[in-house]
């Protein structure tokens, strides 16, 4: 199974939509596209996880890494509308307490 990554920039914000299975095999491309946005001056990224049907610990580690980098430069990585499997694992690891999780779409999420 494959993970689709759609990334776009709007102003100082960026939005990335992931769809599919987010595991160790997909860690590198996701990290690359998210850090590319940060390097490009985007401070806050809305990451749509509504169509991610699986995430493993390596995937979560990538999100953590990007979140920490974004916060260092005054921005954030906002997890948008995580799917049920993602939500379950975020709760199971208490990572929902570390991330800003938003229910609204990435376009709106990156606005603030």
């Amino acid at each position, binding site marked *: 199974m494959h993970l689709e990554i759609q990334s776009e920039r709007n102003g100082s914000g960026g939005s990335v939509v992931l769809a599919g299975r987010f595991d160790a095999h997909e860690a590198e491309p996701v990290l690359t596209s998210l850090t590319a946005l940060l390097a490009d001056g985007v401070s806050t990224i809305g990451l749509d996880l509504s169509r991610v049907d699986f995430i493993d610990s390596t995937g979560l580690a990538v999100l953590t890494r990007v979140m920490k980098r974004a916060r260092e430069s005054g921005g954030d990585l906002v997890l948008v509308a995580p799917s049920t499997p993602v939500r379950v694992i975020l709760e199971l690891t*208490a*990572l929902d307490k570390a991330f800003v999780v938003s229910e609204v779409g990435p376009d709106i999420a990156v606005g603030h």
Partner: protein
Amino acid sequence: MHAQPSVAAGDRMPAAFERVREALVELSRVWIESGAESVLIDDGKGCHTVAGSATSDSIRLEARLDAFDPPARLIVAGIDSEYARSRLEADARLLDGLAVARTQLSNTTAALVEANDQALAFYHLATGTSSSLSVADIVDHLAEEARGLTGAPAVAICVPSLPDTLCGDREFARVLVDLVRDGVGTESGMVRRHSSGLNHDVLIVPIGHEQPGRLILAGPAGGRIHTPTQKLAAAIAGHLGGLLKLARTHQRELADAMLRHDVEAASMLAGQVLPRRSPTVPGLDVHARNQPARLASGDYFTWTMTERGLIFAVGDVSGKGLPAALVMTMLATATTAAAHRDRTGNPAHILAEINADVYEYLSDSGVFVTTAVCSWEPRSGVVSVVNAGHSPVLTVRRGQVEPVPPHVPPLGVLPCVDAEVASFRLEVNDMLLLGSDGLVEQENADGMQYGQDRLAEAVVRSGTTTAVGLVDELFALLQSHSGDEPQDDDRTLLVVRRTREAP
């Protein structure tokens, strides 16, 4: 009229007689011509007619055939005389002698073929010892071989990533290389002496299919390079191509083997950070097991006896394999060190200490670590748990299984952790189970996870009364759940059980 000698198609000659078949048929023909009704052989299993036909009451003469195994008999029917007897005896000796000679010949031929094969194999070994020679040595060797076999005054071999190999008249060989480099209009093939400008034919042969290498050789001054030399050169270049491929494959395999060895050694060393013996703690029965999915585990467990009681923990580094195992050793050590330093007996304090020690390292490594750190205070019998993103953590009290949910994210996510402590008094037979997600997320052939509910059910149903018994049982149940499916993730389980013994 006498019957014509023949071997009936249905009456096959026994295999042992095949080597003397011609002689047997010929002498049978002569017997029939001299008035015999038939000639037969008896190979110990039965009679076979070689020529003619005989009635069962015909008179028979017999002679032993000793060179056959088992001994056989040559039989002539319908004839009897002193002469016939001695002639039959002579025929038998003739067949014996022939059989022995034919056997020796075939043995000798086989031995010769074998010896020739060995000589050939030895030649290949001696010339192309690609496993022990370097690529450069092989090229040198073949260049000499090409010069010797073709009688070329100069030979050059150009192979990418190696300096050019020149042999014979080296200066001339250098000219040949330059000729090809400068592009005489051909990448391979023959450049006749009128167009080479050297008064020599120059032959350029590609080496192998994959390497863009060239074997270049010069013909005699003023003479031609003839077809046999071209074929020889092509054969040498082909052979060299094969040897180079073999040598490179071998070198790659050597490098791979060294890497595998390093990975195995490192995995073994990483695993040694885990305690090998259960701690002896009055009032507690403690046992843990770790089963890596690959060579090395990113899970760990650890325990330390301090003046305030037993500190124990289980953790799981994100990711798998050796990279996770390297981080794991760091975490196991940091946990033990923080437990030793601790004077509070409060696992929240120990967790904060560990995070302070490893946060930067984990940030740089891009990983996080889920962990549950616990302390057991012998006097009160109270066990305290802090859970940083870890699961499953289960208490089993009076047969009831309850999860201890995480209160803070894993280590390495936030710079500071301020965890809530969950405390329970452990009564006799109450237990605390610290697992890792590999224990509950293992899938079976239908893609169904083992799951925390099934784990809890198995714990309740278990009849075992020891920590090690429960660990054994749960690992076995998990194995039967996964069946032939590969192990998805590292599996760890630490069981702490309150015993009757006074702490």
